[in-house]
């Protein structure tokens, strides 16, 4: 595949490219930022990036939302409902993880008076 074709495919799969970009931005936040709350915002960005990937996977040109309403013919084109069903589960998982992590942070702050990863590391070794 030469680079012209790569650019062409990147244009068609633009949503995927954005999803991966967001994933990496999130990963950078998790790895490089010291503040724990910031780390978790990064993780949430990663999660939404994953979801964007899934939902874009299910998109169909000119597709309608997969709900049978009045006036829809049998030949109507629908988008793929499976990724949407999966992501509904994924969002719940994401918010559960966030809730648990945030409560851990509250507890850590009560004990250590800081949320900075570097300082916490120093406190841990003491």
């Amino acid at each position, binding site marked *: 595949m030469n680079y012209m074709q790569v650019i062409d495919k990147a244009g068609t799969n633009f949503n995927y490219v954005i999803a991966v970009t967001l994933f990496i931005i999130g990963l950078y936040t998790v790895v490089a*930022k010291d503040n724990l709350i*910031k780390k978790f*915002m990064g993780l949430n*960005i990663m999660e*939404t990036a994953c979801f964007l990937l899934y939902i874009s996977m299910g*998109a169909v040109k000119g597709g309608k939302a997969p709900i049978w309403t009045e006036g829809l013919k049998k030949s109507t084109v629908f988008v793929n409902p499976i990724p949407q069903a999966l992501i509904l589960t994924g969002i719940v998982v994401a918010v559960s993880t966030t*809730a648990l992590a945030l409560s851990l942070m509250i507890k850590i*702050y009560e004990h250590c008076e800081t949320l900075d990863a570097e300082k916490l590391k120093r406190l841990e070794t003491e």
Partner: protein
Amino acid sequence: MIWRLDIILLLFLVATALIVVRTKDLLAAALIFGAYSLIMCIVWQQLSAPDIALTEAAVGAGVTTVLFIVTISKTTRREE
């Protein structure tokens, strides 16, 4: 397939994500994160996923942001 609004929304998404990462004030970052979720919600509406859009609006922009704000109010607002 992709029309102009989508491209703008997606680029805006990346921009908000970058702002969330760069903002030093955590409260502001949490609120911008709520805005990010709302944009995501519109993107999903554009991709004909109204169920997910509703969920994201209720959970991502609603509950997650509230939980972030509670945590910030209980801990610290500045990122050192």
